[in-house]
């Protein structure tokens, strides 16, 4: 995949936090139409990688290209869905107005949402099937609905790349399946979708490709290929051959 291609292209990315290297030489590409799951233990640098892709952390080396352009906050068509606890769901605002805040950066100060912007907001709500609850205060919706509101807020920008930080955490299994189906659909419509998760089972079932991350990308491949090879999993998660993790891989 060349730099001019759309989608997400991370090359040789190294990131330091407080002088300490957190990521070294990360290579990762997500093509349009592809749903990629990023797996790794706590402290592997998953959130750091997402923040670097968003342009919130300066790379010590390497590059990030979003839709063929260097990543920069507010300039690249990138949708970000943070972890649910990062969002103030106790704020007194309706679902539709919360989704509309996804356009604040694009509009810039002093400009109000125009008809086309409200149309993008309505489309995003439709897409996640939350249109009926548009006027409900965000404090009065369920966990699964909250996650869909965050996805809608990211979609309001009509992004070509979508990043989701642990969207399955704290969800029951039926809700996880509904969300996984939604993410797969969003990818198939031509977006490059990258999600982080601790739920290896969900990732293997729903993602087109898996990337194993621990400081750098240890391995990447289709769920079928990766599940057959225990070596990269042992390296990534620092577990022995008798680990329950490997037994679970065989079951998938």
């Amino acid at each position, binding site marked *: 995949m060349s730099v001019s291609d759309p989608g997400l292209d991370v090359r040789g990315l190294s990131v330091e936090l*407080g002088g300490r290297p957190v990521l070294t030489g990360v290579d990762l590409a997500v093509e349009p139409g592809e749903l990629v799951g990023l797996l790794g233990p706590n402290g592997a640098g998953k959130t750091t990688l997402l*923040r670097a892709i*968003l*342009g*919130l952390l300066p790379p010590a080396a390497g590059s990030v290209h979003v839709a063929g352009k260097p990543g*920069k*906050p*507010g*300039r690249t068509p*990138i949708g*970000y869905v*943070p972890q649910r606890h*990062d*969002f*103030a769901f106790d*704020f*007194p*605002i*309706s679902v539709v*107005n*919360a989704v509309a*805040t*996804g356009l*604040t*950066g*694009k*509009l810039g*100060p*002093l400009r*109000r949402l125009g008809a086309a912007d409200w149309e993008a907001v309505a489309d995003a709500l439709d897409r996640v099937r939350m249109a009926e609850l548009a006027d409900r*205060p965000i*404090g*009065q*919706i*369920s*966990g*699964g*609905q909250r996650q869909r509101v965050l996805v809608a*807020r990211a979609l309001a*920008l009509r992004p070509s790349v979508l990043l989701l930080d642990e969207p399955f955490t*704290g969800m*029951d299994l039926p*809700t996880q399946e509904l969300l996984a189906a939604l993410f797969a659909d969003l990818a198939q419509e031509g977006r490059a979708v990258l999600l982080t998760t601790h739920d290896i089972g969900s990732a293997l079932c729903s993602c087109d490709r898996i990337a194993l991350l621990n400081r750098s990308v240890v391995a990447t491949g289709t769920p079928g290929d990766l599940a057959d090879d225990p070596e990269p999993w042992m390296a990534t998660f620092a577990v022995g051959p008798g680990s329950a993790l490997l037994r679970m891989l065989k079951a998938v």
Partner: protein
Amino acid sequence: MNPLDFLADLLNPDLAFLPKALAVAVMSAVVCGVVGTHVVLRGMSFIGDAVAHAVFPGLAVAFVLSGNLVLGGTAAGVLTAVFVAIFSQNRRLKEDSIIGVFFVAAFALGIVVISQAPGYAGSLQQFLFGSITGIPDSDLYVVAGTGLLVLAALFALHKEFVTISLDRESARAMGVKVFWLDLILYILITLAVVISVQTIGNILVLALLITPAATARLLTDRLQLMMLLAPAIGGCSALIGLYLSWSWDLPTGGTIVLVLTAVFLLAWFCAPHNGLIAQARRRPPSGPLPAPKTAHFEEFEE
């Protein structure tokens, strides 16, 4: 004293300071109510308290040098903010400790500075607890002009402030200038505090910022309504508080704050949806307590 007597006193030319005090108190309560909505929703009450203390050395310097109180207070408030921002870069200390260090230091500096002024005890008391006498005509215009500026800025940047309150990280990722908008909000809080200090005093001004907005939050789940209710509650409480303090010869700042607190308690018990009484009424007469409102409970809605 009945309200008609109060009205007569307001119109009495010998008591010209009274309508001026009323105007300043109501205007500052209205401005603080709107600004306070952001302070309450962001959970930055401690920062509000810090700002209220941080403006004091500026007021003291302006007072000693007979300068402009609004300018002096704002300069001190912003300077303290910059100090907090710089010293917070040291990751060993959390920001709230840094704020704790600097706002008390600022307040102490103010006390030392104002002790240099003649008639020190009287002016200190006036700054700390407010006073309704001795408001010059020019202050009316300064308070009105500053208040309008603050409200206009809040209106113009409403979309940005809401976006940052919901989720700072995503706001940054979208290219919203979070650092500068935080600084602007801080300056707006500082201005609201400075124009209120005159009547209500440095120590009690936090109540104008927090209590009306907190009361409004109990009454509504809609931001726009909250931003109208908070200044209405603040303005009416300022009016009632001044009336009561004038009738019974009570300290004005303290009386206004007690009225605000009474309204808050009333809302806490009687709010239509969230109040204690409404909750008790929804409960079946002899049934168990309602299930705690957890994520599991909410899942039933899906």
